[in-house]
């Protein structure tokens, strides 16, 4: 685990959620190095595949957010293909796929990175989708409350050799306490204070999330729909700095 301090702007991963290749490339170019990396997910990948992903990411660190969840062999194959073709900095799987699936992904990630000669991508696990509440969990047969299930899955992911998890702002403290300082916490669903989408659902600003223990924050529309995305990212970086510089 790299323990050098991460610059505030480098903690921001800009979620580029669009099926449009030109829009995505334009956004990535406008963002430049004002963020730590970009996140591309299922919407873009399923439209343009690895070639599109590589075209958008360019030299920016890439979080490839495809959340694999299948039998171990299939997930291992997906990880091998993705690492070789997309060369992500971060990629992810579903912790609820179980220990064997996660171990297969960990091994595939490590071996493929070595084979193609790149730094090993960080492999993180999704715990509980932020769209699921306790009742939704119960309906699919998982034991709530959501926070408890997220913590259970985070520990399982760590035991399986994953580098970290995706978690909600509300789970940062508990998972950080349980899994230690070297376990990477990537936190989506955060809106900057005062952003257009700011509403009662916002529980933390990016700065508060990092202060609480998040390593990276994933931010979409507040950056990508701003008139000046780089400027919006800079304001978020300054918020992170204000909350974390001691």
């Amino acid at each position, binding site marked *: 685990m790299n323990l050098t301090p991460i610059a505030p702007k480098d903690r921001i991963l800009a979620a580029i959620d669009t099926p449009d290749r030109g829009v995505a490339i334009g956004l990535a170019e406008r963002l430049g190095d004002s963020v730590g990396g970009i996140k591309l997910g299922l919407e873009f990948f399923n439209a343009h595949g690895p070639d599109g992903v590589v075209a958008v990411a360019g030299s920016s660190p890439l979080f490839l957010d495809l959340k694999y969840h299948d039998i171990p062999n299939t997930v291992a194959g997906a990880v091998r293909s993705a690492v070789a073709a997309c060369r992500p900095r971060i990629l992810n799987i579903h912790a609820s796929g179980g220990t064997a699936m996660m171990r297969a992904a960990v091994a595939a990630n490590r071996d493929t990175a070595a084979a193609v000669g790149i730094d090993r991508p960080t492999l993180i696990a999704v715990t509980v989708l932020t769209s699921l509440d306790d009742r939704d969990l119960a309906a699919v047969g998982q034991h709530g409350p959501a926070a408890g299930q997220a913590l259970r899955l985070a520990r399982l992911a760590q035991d399986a050799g994953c580098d970290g998890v995706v978690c909600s702002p509300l789970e940062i403290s508990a998972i950080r306490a349980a899994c230690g300082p070297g376990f990477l916490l990537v936190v989506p669903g955060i809106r900057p204070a005062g952003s257009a989408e700011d509403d009662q659902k916002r529980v933390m600003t990016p700065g508060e999330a990092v202060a609480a223990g998040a390593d990276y924050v994933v931010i979409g529309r507040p950056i990508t729909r701003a008139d*000046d995305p780089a*400027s919006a990212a800079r304001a978020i970086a300054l918020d992170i*700095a*204000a909350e974390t*510089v*001691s």
Partner: protein
Amino acid sequence: MTGVLVKICGVSDAAAARAAGEAGADMVGFVFYPPSPRAVTPARAAELARDLPAGVLRVALLVDADDALVDAVAATGAVDMLQLHGRETPERVAAIRARTGLPVMKALAVAGAADVEAAAAYDGVADRILFDAKPPNGMAGALPGGNGLSFDWRLLEGLRLDTPWMLSGGLDAGNVAVAIRLTGARAVDASSGVEDRPGTKNPDKIRAFVAAAKATAFDCQKRPGMSAAS
């Protein structure tokens, strides 16, 4: 013709930062030099930096800082430029620029013609050069800058630099227009001139200074060395 670039230096409280931002200052400086009454901690600077408008350049003032302090300030992620206000050599300026990846403004203390000539060594090395007044020998409690002193602006006559420069030293709302007209400065900096006493910024004086500087249309033809025709 266009407005000059205005920097308010030594901001250490929220009211001053707000005034500078609202008044339209282009740069705001935070002093990372503990002996200064305007000194801020990195944490304080980061808080103040957050609350400035997006377009304002956040500048960190350092005085003969070692690598550890340079790194700590750069790592805050809250500053856009470093201002070196000590005896940093051109080599040191280049090294800090390379080390941090941040643009660097080198401040030079001016008392005589030789001090202005020394700027040539920093031309093309620093991203901007700031001319400030050199405190007289023996001045009690003298700081590297912000002493409320002006130097003889005529010393800038004949100045030829490829690097943009900035005028500082005893500027306030009352004299900045004359200073701009006389020197051809396209960028001006104030610290003590917008204070009630050292370290205590006055928001009204900040607003007045920015307004006075911005209202002074500098003449593109006017260069140092030409007479200050009225």
